[in-house]
């Protein structure tokens, strides 16, 4: 034993969590998933303000516009659009010339043109307020300069002409919020219930777990549909209720963990010191069950998101004009023949999120499972 060994700095201990964090950081799939999830959440949170469209604004001239980077209207589409507007003004357009952001054209009609009708240009989604350059033949010919209003639909539009990008992002807010909300409820109930049953043990445990068994025996979908019947229009309440059903697995997991933890020396020591049951549960038992619980949470969030989209597919979910990924996907599935983008984009968002959550869950399991060390 030399002096050198004594002088060396004390080895800093690493907690389970630090250990797990380093292992998680080494797992590339899990870290990529974490980043992807962060990006999707960020996009859904702030994206809807940046797209330049309102999620519930229907552009009547752009029903089912395919997704593209091009700005609308395209130069080829303008003459036809001018024709449509002119028809409403009851005039025939001619000399249509598109240059940049304006269109010059001449309207002619057998009778003098009512200039108030020019408001139809304004009402169209494609044009601004027209400027009259010249009138001729007692107002039967009008030369107009009409500004073109450019819009961009990166993800296309839906069957009502609403911007799909904005709707997908807004839907993401709803779907993610629902997933987190229901999972949060399940987490709280399941952890408290499971920890209490496991720690108290004996007859109380028996009784509490029999209740869980009975609830297990009821068909889950029956429960969910009953909840829809009860809460109908109030989606938030419904998902609080879904969370209140989903806690069963959580309770079982936590109870199992608790049973083994409560025999550990530090729990016995706490008991011997007279720490109240409540504090033993919150200070010693629950924090030590969190490993499996976190893994289960990352798998429960996608489960709830899928459940929501399943309900929306059945028409029992979020109501118009609000939307969720499930609603968009079921709309898209119905329109898949002519408008595949309506399915592709929301489905891509949903599947990417679920993929990322699953990879993250797997990564956490590997990171927290001490057997694989």
């Amino acid at each position, binding site marked *: 034993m030399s002096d050198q060994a004594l002088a060396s700095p004390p080895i800093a201990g690493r907690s389970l969590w630090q250990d797990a964090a380093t292992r998680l950081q080494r797992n590339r799939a899990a870290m990529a998933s974490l980043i992807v999830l962060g990006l999707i959440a960020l996009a859904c949170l702030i994206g809807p303000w940046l797209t330049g469209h309102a999620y519930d604004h229907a552009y009547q001239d752009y029903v089912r516009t395919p997704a593209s980077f091009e700005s609308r209207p395209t130069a080829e589409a303008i003459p036809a659009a001018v024709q449509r507007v002119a028809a409403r003004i009851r005039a025939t357009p001619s000399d249509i010339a598109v240059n940049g952001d304006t269109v010059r054209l001449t309207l002619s009609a057998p009778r003098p043109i009512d200039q108030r009708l020019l408001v139809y240009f304004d009402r169209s989604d494609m044009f601004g307020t027209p400027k009259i350059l010249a009138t001729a033949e007692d107002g039967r010919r009008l030369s107009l300069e009409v500004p073109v209003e450019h819009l961009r639909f990166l993800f296309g539009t839906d069957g009502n002409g609403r911007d799909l990008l904005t709707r997908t992002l807004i839907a993401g807010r709803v779907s993610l919020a629902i997933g987190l909300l229901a999972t949060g409820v399940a987490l709280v109930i399941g952890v408290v219930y499971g920890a209490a049953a496991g720690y108290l043990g004996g007859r109380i445990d028996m009784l509490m777990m029999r209740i869980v068994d009975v609830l297990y025996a009821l068909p889950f979908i029956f429960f969910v549909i009953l909840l829809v019947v009860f809460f109908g229009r109030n989606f938030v309440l419904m998902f609080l209720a879904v969370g209140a059903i989903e806690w069963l697995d959580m309770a079982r997991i936590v109870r199992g963990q608790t049973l083994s933890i409560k025999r550990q020396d530090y729990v016995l020591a706490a008991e011997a010191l007279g720490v109240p049951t409540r504090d033993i549960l919150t200070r010693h038992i629950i924090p030590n069950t969190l490993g499996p619980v976190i893994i289960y949470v990352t798998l429960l969030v996608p489960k709830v998101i899928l459940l929501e989209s399943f309900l929306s597919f059945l028409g029992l979910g979020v109501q118009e004009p609000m939307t969720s990924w499930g609603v968009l996907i079921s709309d898209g*599935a119905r329109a898949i023949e002519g408008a595949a983008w309506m399915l592709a984009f929301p489905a891509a968002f949903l599947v990417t999120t679920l993929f990322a959550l699953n990879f993250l869950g797997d990564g956490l399991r590997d990171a927290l499972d001490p057997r694989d060390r």
Partner: protein
Amino acid sequence: MLPFILRRLLTAIPTLLVVVTLSFFLMRVAPGGPFDLEQPLEAKVMANLRRIYQLDQPLYTQYLTYLGALLRGDFGPSFYFRDFTIAELFRQGLPVSMRLGASALLLALAIGGPLGVLAAFRQNQGADYAVMGFATAGITIPNFVVAPVLQIVFGLTLAWLPVAGWNDGAVRNTILPIVTLALPQIAVIARMTRASMIETLRANHIRTLRAQGLPATTIALHALRGAALPVVSYLGPAAAALLTGSVVVENIFAIPGIGRYFVEGALNRDYTLVMGTVVVVAIFVLAFNLVVDLIYALLDPRVRLG
């Protein structure tokens, strides 16, 4: 073995009773009734209807009447599908759902099991990543996305198979629904088989087999027996769910199964239909759990039935 089965069948009765009771009262306290229409019926008509279906009696009388009928195997008439009894609806729909579900289950086992074993033997190699990627996709992509894509690709673009319809159960019509039902199950079975196989391959008896220089297939067969346990216990509830039909698949492919009855029954407050579905599903769940326990005892001699 026989006493065990008998005892399990006996304990199934109270469970069924609890399920029936809970769902009966839950269904009845739900707002609305089976005869609520957009335009309310005349009070007299409503009163007559309620009397015919005995809805005017106190709830506990209705409950006892229903239980009595159920004991005699009588599920009662449907409120929504007039002219049909629940038994008739199930006689038509259950074989359809069961055929699709059983085929999907067999397909899932035949593909998912070998995939999982392959992935376990090639852990952390290309084949493993491929299988696990496929499995994650199978779990995450909802069936109502898979189904329309299959319809477009195989029904319209390639025009190999009919887009939808039952056509009295022609094999061509069942392929797409079966594949849709099987895909997520393949994924889950592959994942579970892989995980438990990896664990079993580390066991001592497998190491002994390896030391003896036996071929990989022999080792796989030995390991499979132990590795099958968690998969079997997953298969019980999964089989019950598959055989009793899927509302999404039956909706999309226009299949006359019983999967849709839960949703339709609950939304239309068809009390007897919902109760019938609950009972049928519960019986399937209990039966398959029993089967699972029996298979467990066969696979693992340490498990004692009792």
